[in-house]
Each structure stands twice: as structure tokens, then as C-alpha cells.
């Protein structure tokens, strides 16, 4: 075990920290946020340690309870589970941001619960990302889903509970679909360990396996908000407090993508049936998501609503990359998971800062804010440029890779859709930047608002700088993830 005991620190600390959070919040009301930040600092260190271990020594696993894999639960650390590094980064910044933001957005009595739920959500995500056991995956999926539903409702905005309830029903149905699929896989193979499953799936009855795969895909597509199943997303992401929106949009929807990647790893390994139909479906749904998400985003007035629809569009890119089943496509898709997380966190935290200072959410009310809050607006502009995919920024390389993948797979149509989608995205972000910088303000008093407190400004600036850095050094995550993808596609014969 190369990672020492860091894996255990990574998954257990947030859960224990969250368990103590209400107690601490009751004793020292102002301390809960700092407690959460401290706990999550430890988690971040652990995430860094395991990522470092993966990058130097390659994949390794940690056997919970000391039982060897098919009998006990295995934590598996490979290039995909390095996503804990992104979870740690964005989670830490979101908690830091919350220290000021939550004070005015969340009712005071709920603050300890707010931080406990944040820790549970992030901890559940970390556990989900590193587990090597499908049932354990379901358990951690539930931790993170339950805490996300509650986090949507916790600010108590006008339709927050309704949005949360809609999210809960769809999320619970999708979790059950996933559990149903787990039952199918267990009945077919008698094992729950992913590595073991990919061996034993070879040679089982094809039709039940296909039903299981369809159910898993359905479940994870709901979690990831792929187009026809996205209806829970806009309300939930727009009504949640902004740091929560950043986590939901940046990380929680990616859980669906990560689940799909895990499923693909098993399927490519076992070659249980031809994946062409699944891949085609994903590609088409991805393409439709890109276009529809962008079209809906165009007509939104509310800035957070617009960002929420933009997430659907970007999830479309990722699924298209997965469905292409070519090395470039999957690398592009997987790296877009990381990059989109950073970019969307920048945008949501930036939008939250605007709302915090002005109290307005609509683009027309926020006109001219670029002069009043120059730093925040500049960061949002950087995020917008990145998400469109203009060359020196983070969004460019992965979209480029997905397009290359489409050409490599001989799917020119999808490469064209991708470019068209980028154009549409460009249009609505231009609309936003136009409102910020080039339109006279609607409310003159907005000119006097200053920048947000430092604890809120620092995360935004750090993320915006990362958007630029990821653009310049974008090859690093690409080459990091490449061996995993090549390994995954190896059974296809190149």
C-alpha cells in the first residue's frame, strides 16, 4: 500500500468532522465554519498525498478492514480517483467563501447544519470517487445526494424547498435504478468488487447484463443531468446558496460522469457485449444536451439560471467525449470534468459575489457592474472566456481533444455540433459580458458598491488564475489521465 493510511484519512475525516460540527456549532456559534475549514484542510492534505502517490507509483488499493478484495471493501486509487484533488481544491475554496457568504444567505440557526452538510457532501463525494466496490459506491452516493438535497433547501429561498423536493424525487429514483442494476450485476456474478466484476462479467448472459448497463446509464445520466433528464437541475442549482451551487455544478453532477467512467472500465475489461449502441446513444444525447442547454441558457435573465443551463451544455460535451470511445474523446471528456469544475466554480462564486453585494440576480439589473466590482467581474470574464474555449484558457484543450476524438472516430457530424455548441455558448456569455462592461447601469447606486470581503474574493481570484494556468499548462492533466484511458481502451485492440 503505497499511500500509507492517507486513504482512510481522506474518507473518514470529513464524516467524523461533520458528526462533531453541530456540537461545536452549538457551543461556539461562530466557530462551526472554521472547524469545517480545518477539517477540510486535513482532507485536502490527504487528497494531495494520495494524488501524489498515484502520480509517482501508479495505481494502488487500500483494503478496508484488512480483508482482501472480493470479501472486504477495496478503495481503489487510479488516475480517475485523482479527482479527489479537484474535490479538495473546490471544496476548500467553497468553505472559505462560505465563511462570509453563508452569514447573510443562511439563517443563523442553520449554520452548523450547513457546514456539517457541506462536509458530508464533500466527504461522500471523496468516498464515491475512490471506492472500488459497487455497493459501497451506492452508499456514498446516498450520503452525497442526501446532503445535496438539504443544501439546496437550506437557504430557505422562495422556491428552495420545491426545487429540493424535485431534486430529491428524481435523485432517489435514479439511486434506486442504480441499486437495481447492482442487484442484477450481483445476481449474475456473485461479487460486488469492481475489479472482480470486470473479470467475472465476461461470459455471463448478455441480455440481463445489458439491462443492468442500461439501468446504470439511466441512473447516472439523471445524476449528471443529461438532457431529457435534466429537469431537476436549473431550479436546484439556481436557488442554492452560491458556494453550494459551485459545488453542485462543479462537482456533484460530475459524480454521474465518474460513475459512467467506472462502468465503462468494467465493460471494456470484460467485453461482455458490443457497446456500439450505448456509445451512440450517449453521443446523441450529449449533442442534444449541448444544443438545448445552450438554447435555454440564452433566454435566461437570472445569471445563476443561465450558469445552471450552461452546466447541462457542458455535461453534453463530457458525455459526447465518453460516447466517442476513442482515446482522444475520452481523455478530453475526463479532463473536461476537471476543467469545467474549476471554471464553473469561478463563475458561480463570482455570481454569488455580485448577488452578495448588489442583491440583484438579473442581468439587466447588474448592468455596468464591471466598473463597480472590477476584480470580481474580471474573474467572471476569465471564466466566461474559458468556458467558451478560446485558446489560451482551460476550456480550449479538452474541447479540442473531444473534437479530435470525433474526427478520429470518423464522426464529423459531432465535431461540427461541438463547434456549433461552442458558438452558442459564446453568444450568451458575450451577452453577459456586454451587460457587465458595455451597457450603462440601470441602477446608479450600484456604482458605489465595493468589492466583497477578502475571504470571498480570494477563492474567486485563485480559481480564475487556475483557469488561466490550466490553459497554459493544460497538458499536465491530459498526460496524467492518458495512461488510464489507454489502459481502459486496451481490450478494444488499440
Amino acid at each position, binding site marked *: *500500500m503505497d499511500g500509507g*493510511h492517507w*486513504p*482512510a484519512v481522506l474518507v*473518514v475525516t470529513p*464524516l*467524523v468532522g*461533520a*458528526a*462533531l460540527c*453541530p*456540537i461545536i456549532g*452549538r457551543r461556539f456559534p461562530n466557530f462551526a465554519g472554521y472547524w469545517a475549514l480545518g477539517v477540510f484542510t486535513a482532507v485536502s492534505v490527504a487528497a494531495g498525498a494520495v494524488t501524489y502517490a498515484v502520480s509517482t507509483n501508479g495505481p494502488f488499493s487500500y*483494503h*478496508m*478492514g*484488512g*480483508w482482501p478484495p472480493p*470479501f*472486504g*471493501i477495496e478503495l481503489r486509487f487510479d488516475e480517475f480517483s485523482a479527482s479527489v484533488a479537484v474535490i479538495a481544491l473546490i471544496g476548500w475554496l467553497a468553505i472559505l467563501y462560505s465563511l462570509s457568504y453563508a452569514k447573510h444567505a443562511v*439563517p*443563523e*440557526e*442553520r449554520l452548523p*447544519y*450547513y457546514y*456539517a*452538510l457541506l462536509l*458530508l457532501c464533500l466527504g*461522500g463525494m471523496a*468516498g464515491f470517487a475512490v471506492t472500488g*466496490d459497487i*455497493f*459501497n459506491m451506492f*452508499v*456514498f452516493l*446516498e*450520503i452525497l445526494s*442526501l*446532503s445535496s*438535497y*438539504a443544501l439546496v*433547501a*437550506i437557504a*430557505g429561498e422562495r422556491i428552495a424547498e420545491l426545487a*429540493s423536493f424535485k431534486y430529491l424525487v428524481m435523485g432517489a429514483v435514479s439511486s434506486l435504478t442504480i441499486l437495481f442494476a447492482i442487484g*442484477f450485476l450481483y*445476481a*449474475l*456474478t*456473485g*461479487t460486488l468488487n469492481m475489479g472482480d466484476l470486470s473479470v*467475472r462479467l465476461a461470459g455471463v*448472459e448478455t*441480455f*440481463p447484463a*445489458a*439491462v*443492468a448497463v442500461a439501468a446504470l446509464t439511466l441512473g447516472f445520466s439523471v445524476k449528471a443531468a443529461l438532457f431529457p433528464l435534466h429537469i431537476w437541475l436549473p431550479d436546484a442549482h439556481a436557488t442554492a446558496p452560491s458556494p453550494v451551487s459551485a459545488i453542485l455544478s462543479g462537482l456533484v453532477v460530475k459524480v454521474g460522469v465518474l460513475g459512467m467512467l467506472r462502468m465503462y472500465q468494467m465493460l471494456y475489461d470484460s467485453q461482455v457485449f458490443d457497446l456500439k449502441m450505448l456509445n451512440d446513444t450517449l453521443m446523441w444525447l450529449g449533442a442534444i444536451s449541448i444544443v438545448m442547454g445552450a438554447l435555454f441558457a440564452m433566454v435566461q435573465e437570472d445569471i445563476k439560471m443561465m450558469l445552471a443551463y450552461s452546466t447541462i451544455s457542458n455535461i453534453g460535451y463530457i458525455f459526447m467525449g465518453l460516447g466517442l470511445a476513442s482515446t482522444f474523446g475520452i481523455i478530453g471528456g475526463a479532463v473536461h470534468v476537471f476543467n469545467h469544475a474549476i471554471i464553473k466554480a469561478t463563475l458561480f462564486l463570482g455570481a454569488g459575489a455580485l448577488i452578495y453585494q448588489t442583491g440583484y440576480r438579473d442581468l439587466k439589473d447588474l448592468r455596468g457592474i464591471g466598473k463597480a466590482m472590477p476584480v470580481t467581474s474580471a474573474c467572471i470574464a476569465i471564466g466566461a472566456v474559458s468556458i467558451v474555449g478560446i485558446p489560451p484558457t482551460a476550456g480550449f484543450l479538452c474541447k479540442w481533444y473531444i473534437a479530435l476524438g470525433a474526427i478520429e472516430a470518423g464522426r464529423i457530424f459531432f465535431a461540427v455540433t461541438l463547434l456549433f455548441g461552442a458558438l452558442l455558448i459564446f453568444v450568451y456569455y458575450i451577452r453577459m459580458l456586454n451587460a457587465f462592461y458595455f451597457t450603462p447601469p440601470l441602477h446608479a447606486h450600484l456604482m458605489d458598491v465595493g468589492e466583497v470581503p477578502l475571504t470571498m474574493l480570494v477563492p474567486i481570484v485563485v480559481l480564475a488564475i487556475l483557469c488561466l494556468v490550466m490553459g497554459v499548462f493544460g497538458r499536465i492533466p491530459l498526460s496524467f489521465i492518458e495512461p488510464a484511458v489507454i489502459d481502459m481502451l486496451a481490450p478494444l485492440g488499440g
Partner: protein
Amino acid sequence: MRRALIIALLVLAAVPLLFGVSQLPPIGSTGNPTYTHVVPRYLEEGAEEAGAENIVTAVILNYRGYDTNGEVTVIFTALVAVLGVLTFAKATAAKSEPAEETPVPAPPMPVSPVTRFIVRILAPFILLFSIYMVIYGHTSPGGGFQGGTIVGALLIAVSLVSGSAQAKRLLPERIRPWLQPAAVLAFALVGVAGLWLIGPYLSFPVEGELVFLRTPWLTIIEFGIGIGGAAIVASIFWAMEGSD
């Protein structure tokens, strides 16, 4: 019209599902992969190496203890979520009337004397039964969570019969926040002890001189789950009833 469409869609979904389940290995056969792959080790060696004659307990506390760690976190999440969603009502009430030290309890529902009598008589026995269930969870059916839920249900019954104020005296506000995460903390305690003395997180001794620790550790976890489960179930009820 809409209803007919939904039913048609569901019937359409039923066809592949039913066809799929008809091709699964036949139920009940001992030759199924579910019965020949992982499970034989649990059944043959579980009692010795995991330390519980009830193999289900052996699986949930030892082989797949990490799952159960997640499970208790899920129910703790539910509690925090319920409190997070519902405490707002109290906050607004506090602002409107400053004297909220003694919240007005909802008038108790009229309860027939027979019910009240039965609950009062049965309560000690139910408590005894659930403690038995927690202690003997590794040799007989039941275990921490079942016992804890029954205690929680008992607290709910007492709240319904004699009002929540009465029931809350059994679980005072001062110690409740410490009892709610008892299960998570018990897991962390045993997990770290295992990490320190034996190997990975949540390791139990399998053989050697430390093996005497195994039963106490299992019991700590069972009690943690029991206490936590009872406190959480009762607290969720009180929060939803509006008396908290």
C-alpha cells in the same frame, strides 16, 4: 390521456425488465454464482475469523464494516438535513416573540387510557428487549440498529401518549447532540484503534494475542449504532412534530 401514456411507457419498460430477470440464474439454486463465489468464505469461516456467529452481523460489522460506517453516516446526514430544513420555523418564531424559552407544546392528541396503560406497562420490557438485541446481536437475529430503532420507536410512543416534553426528559437536550453522532464516533474510535494496533482502518484482530479485543470492539460498535439510532430516530420525530 396522460395517465394512459404513462402506463403504456411503464408496460414498455416492463417487457425488457421481465425478460431480463427471466434470464437471471434461477432463484434458490445453490449452484448460483451468488452462492458459490464470495459467500462460502463468509459461511465457513465467518464465525472464527470475524467473531460473530450471526453471519449477517459478521458481514455488516466486520467484512463490510466500511459500508455500515457509511450507513450510519447516511442516517446522521438525514438528521442534520431534517434539522437544517426545519429549524427555520423556530427562528422566525423567536424573532416575533422574544420569550421563547418555553415553546408551547402542541396539545397532545386525546389518548385512550387503555393505550396509555399499555405503553406504560410495556415500556420497560421493550427497553429490556432492545438492549438484549443489541448485546446478543452477534449470536442471534437483530443487532445495534434494530435495537436502537425500537428504542427510538418507544420514545416516539411515549411522546404520543404523554406528550413530547415528558419523553424528552429521557433524552435531555444537553446530551442529545452527543448521542446523535454516537454511531459515527464509535466507528471512528474502533477504526482508529484498529489502524493503530493492527492494520488498515476498521481492522479487527483475526488471530493472535489481540483477539480478545474483538468482541468488545464489536459490542462498542453495536452500542454506538444502537444509541445513535435511537437518538436520531427520536430527534427526527421531535423535529418533524414541531416541538423541537
